[in-house]
């Protein structure tokens, strides 16, 4: 009944709207109108910061004012950001400092070691899982896929906390290892193991994600290729080496490039390990170092120079990966 009454009213609204539309001029710039909200934000919050980082990397802060613009308190660290103080142009000084900064090299090395542990393990697992899930004999594929993909939705900090609890002294990891006769490992405060812990966390989180991508790649390989190989008498392993791997190349490239970027921007996991007593020097990743420099030591200029350097490194690595393949 109420809907019956509403109809004439809605019709009137519709007529008014269409009359209004008739009076509006047709805009030649419609696409630009559609694009403007995105590009306004894109310009302000992405394009300007990109250039601003580059600009800041040639300056240092001068005369920090006493008035706090902003302060945060994370554990042992007291962080206070002062009001924008005068910037002083220092030319390439920040970059010169970077070249001789042992902490920078150490954090790059840490990042690289995490990469070396994480990537082969993760890619091997993801590829193996994808192959099994792609096989004709496998049942309940949907369930396995869902379960394996779940970790990607886990909140980064929260799942890091879970791993800390499992890896802590007296935690489940030690007990599980003890059961097969391995003595307890000091996962968190030993530099070597803390790095591996960060890598394992990432393997847990990203294996399913990469598995899905590889699985999609496997499904694009034409079955006729395998049939041809079978007629030629190829074994499973030969088929994998001579058909699957070459056909997967573009997908694997995508996996490697995105993983590289992911490892280089790793922040939450090392931060959590460090704040629960991990060794700073061995666990600090490059982004963590940039955060320290910029927001603990308040050297925004130097932090920017580090950022520029890191972007350059990531771009170079991505390009090399594209070239190699």
């Amino acid at each position, binding site marked *: 009944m109420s809907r019956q009454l509403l109809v004439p009213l809605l019709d009137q609204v519709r007529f008014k709207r269409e009359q209004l539309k008739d009076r509006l001029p047709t805009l030649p710039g419609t696409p630009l109108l559609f694009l403007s909200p995105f590009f306004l934000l894109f310009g302000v919050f992405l394009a300007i910061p990109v250039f601003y980082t580059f600009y*800041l990397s040639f300056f240092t802060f001068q005369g920090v004012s006493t008035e706090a613009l902003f302060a945060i308190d994370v554990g042992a660290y007291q962080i206070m950001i002062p009001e924008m103080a005068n910037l002083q142009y220092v030319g390439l000084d920040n970059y010169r400092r970077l070249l001789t900064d042992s902490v920078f090299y150490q954090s790059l090395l840490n990042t690289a070691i995490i990469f070396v542990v994480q990537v082969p393990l993760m890619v091997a697992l993801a590829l193996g899982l994808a192959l099994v899930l792609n096989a004709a004999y496998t049942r309940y594929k949907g369930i396995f896929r869902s379960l394996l993909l779940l970790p990607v939705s886990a909140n980064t900090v929260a799942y890091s906390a879970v791993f800390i609890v499992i890896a802590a002294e007296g935690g489940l990891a030690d007990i599980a290892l003890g059961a097969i006769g391995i003595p307890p490992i000091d996962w968190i405060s030993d530099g070597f193991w803390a790095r591996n812990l960060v890598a394992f966390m990432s393997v847990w989180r990203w294996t399913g994600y990469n598995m899905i991508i590889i699985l999609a790649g496997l499904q694009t390989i034409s079955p006729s290729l395998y049939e041809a190989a079978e007629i030629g008498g190829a074994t499973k392993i030969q088929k994998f080496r001579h058909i699957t791997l070459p056909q997967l190349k573009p997908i694997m490239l995508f996996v490697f490039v995105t993983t590289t970027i992911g490892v280089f921007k790793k922040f939450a996991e090392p931060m959590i390990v460090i704040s629960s007593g991990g060794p700073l020097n061995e666990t600090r990743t490059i982004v963590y170092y940039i955060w320290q420099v910029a927001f603990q030591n308040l050297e925004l200029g130097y932090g920017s120079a580090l950022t520029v350097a890191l972007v350059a490194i990531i771009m170079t690595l991505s390009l090399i990966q594209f070239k190699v393949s």
Partner: protein
Amino acid sequence: MHEKLEKEALWQFGGYGFLVAVTMVMMFPIYWLVVASTLPQSAIFAGGAGELPRLIPGRNFLANAEALAARPEVDFYRSMLNSLVIAVVYTGLALLFCSMGGFALAKYEFKYKRALFMGILGTLLLPTNLLVIPLFLLVSNMGLSNSYWAVILPWAAYPLGIFFMKQAMQSIPDSLLEAARMDGASEFQLYYRVVLPSMKSSLAALAVILFLFQWNLFLWPLVVLREGKYTIPVAISKIMSNDMIAYDQLMVASAMAIVPMFVVFILLQRHFVNGILGGAVKE
């Protein structure tokens, strides 16, 4: 022939074994998280000789949750609300902007289109974490710091999002838009009465990606938000930064950050998979 069958059975056995083993190992931390959130601190770790951490749920969930609420330095439940509001508003805005922009890039011809698109592609490789320094200065100068907007706006122009929408919308036949024009639709009506409703599954895919991105954002909220506005990751990091970590409370907080998302994620997973594949396979 017999030998071949045996070999095949071996492969299958190995494959299944591998699949099940990895899945169990992957699922274990989640199971353990749920269990740990119901245990008192003493049962989370091994106690004296021979005493193992408990592997079955206990009854301390509510007690842990209350203790979490009573923490003086961080209001965890407030942070859940913050995270939810921020992620929802962010997802809505970013969807709107990315779909409008993607529509323009996919279905109109105009000057400098290619240049604009290249600009977007160029930032795809850029880790967003790295823009924190200039963004912080920018946001502070705009007077936005310590507000929801400080976390929402900077990433609302999500380059992958507009790229994804452009790719998806290219599949809309031009004639569909022309039919609507003939029917008398204005360009904007075209967008919200024809394009958006026919892009539902792509929008859902992007929504899941955007929501997860914002929900997991850590470094930026850590830098720009203060107590009261904390999001979940920041609040958890605060709980962990105490000298004496209350692990039982930490586990409740982590469970609340992770498990509800799992439920939502399982429901929307199909869209998420379409989303990431839209980015990967079409390259």
